[in-house]
């Protein structure tokens, strides 16, 4: 039974975070009403009526998606390290830090070159 304590703690933390975010948001966030906010899927594209053939949408979406893919997939390398990080010790930690720093350099490039700006 004791084995499940960490999981339980994690569940409590997760639930606590969710409840905290939901309760604090109405008080701290700006309240600017617009029509798009009431849409079913709030990404800026009108879900209905659909244009013929799905229509074309701005390139900005693709850039965001590509940046997401590139940075998201790097997480793969964290996974094997996380499984064996105690066996790899300091060596693994330093190598992983070097890896993350390299990814961060790419991130800094995207950020400074306004790749993350929507407009």
């Amino acid at each position, binding site marked *: 039974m004791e084995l499940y304590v960490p999981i339980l703690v994690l569940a409590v933390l997760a639930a606590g975070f969710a409840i905290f975010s939901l309760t604090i948001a109405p008080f701290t966030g700006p309240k600017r009403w617009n029509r798009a906010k009431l849409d079913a899927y709030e990404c800026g594209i009108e879900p209905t009526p659909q244009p013929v053939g799905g229509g074309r949408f701005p390139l900005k979406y693709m850039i965001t998606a590509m940046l997401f893919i590139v940075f998201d997939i790097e997480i793969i390398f964290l996974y094997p390290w996380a499984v064996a990080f105690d066996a790899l010790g300091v060596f693994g930690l330093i190598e992983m830090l070097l890896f993350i720093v390299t990814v961060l*350099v790419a991130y800094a*490039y995207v950020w400074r070159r306004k790749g993350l700006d929507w407009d």
Partner: protein
Amino acid sequence: MNGIQPPTIEYGQLSPLLLVFGAAIVGVLIEALAPRYLRKSLQMPVTLLGLVGAFALVLTVVMQGVPTKAAAEGAIAVDGPALFIWGVILVLAVISVLLINDDNEFVASAAAVPGTPEEEDAIAAGGAHTEIYPLALFAIGGMMLFASANDLLIMFVALEVMSLPLYLLCGLARRRRLLSQEASVKYFLLGAFSSAFFLYGMALVYGFAGTVSLAGISDALGAVGGQNTLLLIGAGMLGVGLLFKIGAAPFQAWKPDVYQGAPTPITALMASGTLVAAFGAVLRVFWVALGNLDWDWRPVMWGVAILTMVAGAVLAITQTDIKRMLAYSSIAHAGFLLTGVIATGAEAQNALSLKGILFYLVAYGITTVGAFAVVTMVRDAGGEAGHLSRWAGLGKRSPALAGVFAFFLLAFAGIPLTSGFFGKYAVFAAAVAGGAVPLVIVGVVSSAVAAFFYVRVIVLMFFSEPAPDGPTIAVPSVGTAGVVAIAAAATVVLGIYPEPVLRLAEDAASTLFIR
């Protein structure tokens, strides 16, 4: 969990690689943080320092004694041939970067559609993509890794690290944007297609051997005797991926298109560096991993080599564009080099072939960069004067430039007293010793055919009347002039006194590839 040990990484041996990649990352940081007007003046020194520093590190590794064991848990082999190839790639990279430094060749803003106000604005603003420097550094680092990979996984990753920046760089020509972008798309789609073949071949070989390390595959071959469908198909598909990169027939179709469309400095880098690196990888896969399978791959390679030499030489005759002609010449040269790859046998024979190939790569690489440097200088209103007819009478308008170019062409043809002669001689002599006499005969005949079209260009330059509206000869920047001078000097020196480099190649080859 206790079975996992931290790997040992020989940072000293890998330092040249790490420096090149480190410089590339610093280059990206400069792009991110430095203001626009400073970027170029920061990028150039960082790039050159990285490359020259890496060359110095290669020398220190050699001074400390060539390692006899593969580094990084057997993933990267820093052996004699690898160090030699690293040195060659770095020298070629430095002179190519001098050429790349010429502002005029690259697009002001890749995102602007050609012929629109945005593009005019970008050109007026004097913008230039300084990202080309880190991209070139990543490609160069990938080339070095590709030639020293001792493990198919590292080889695949290196292949992509080398190719992806080159795909992008191909599309960045300032003039003739449509051609450049088309070259980029073609190179990318065909390159990705071929690397998928390489990968599936790797999967099948892994299925056969249970490992992707070259030494492990070689050991597994000994156990089975080499009659295994998985292995044969896998080896064939690996071969497709690798032969694509060296541009051997029947996988040569991309080469003329890409060489013509890409910005000429990038073409110079690709034609020299990529070929050198790809031959390093071909040798490693076919000699180290599949050495015991040579009865199976040799007949196929014979066919490929003959087809490559003949196709390169014959198709070059029909070309009307100077860069396309040089591309077909590069295909023919890949065929000549393949004769050396085929001529294996006992250890002494292997060392002889390897020495020939290494020397050929140096000689051909430097002359190629020089030839493309000359191409950048002969200009029309719309950019480089690519069409051969525009080169008519160049010898009368600019005897020095035409003379240097003629000299490079003679070196490609393998005329005595040029570096090309000794390169061809070294490879063909090794091939004869290895029992590939028919191949050498085909090689000599296609050399003669190739000499025909080189001479045709020379005749065109010197013995026909210049057109009244002929191309202008751009006053070269210091870098471009330096590249032409270095390449011409190297071609002369290697043609008259090749002993030092030959001896260096012999020393590098004597240890053969470590396993």
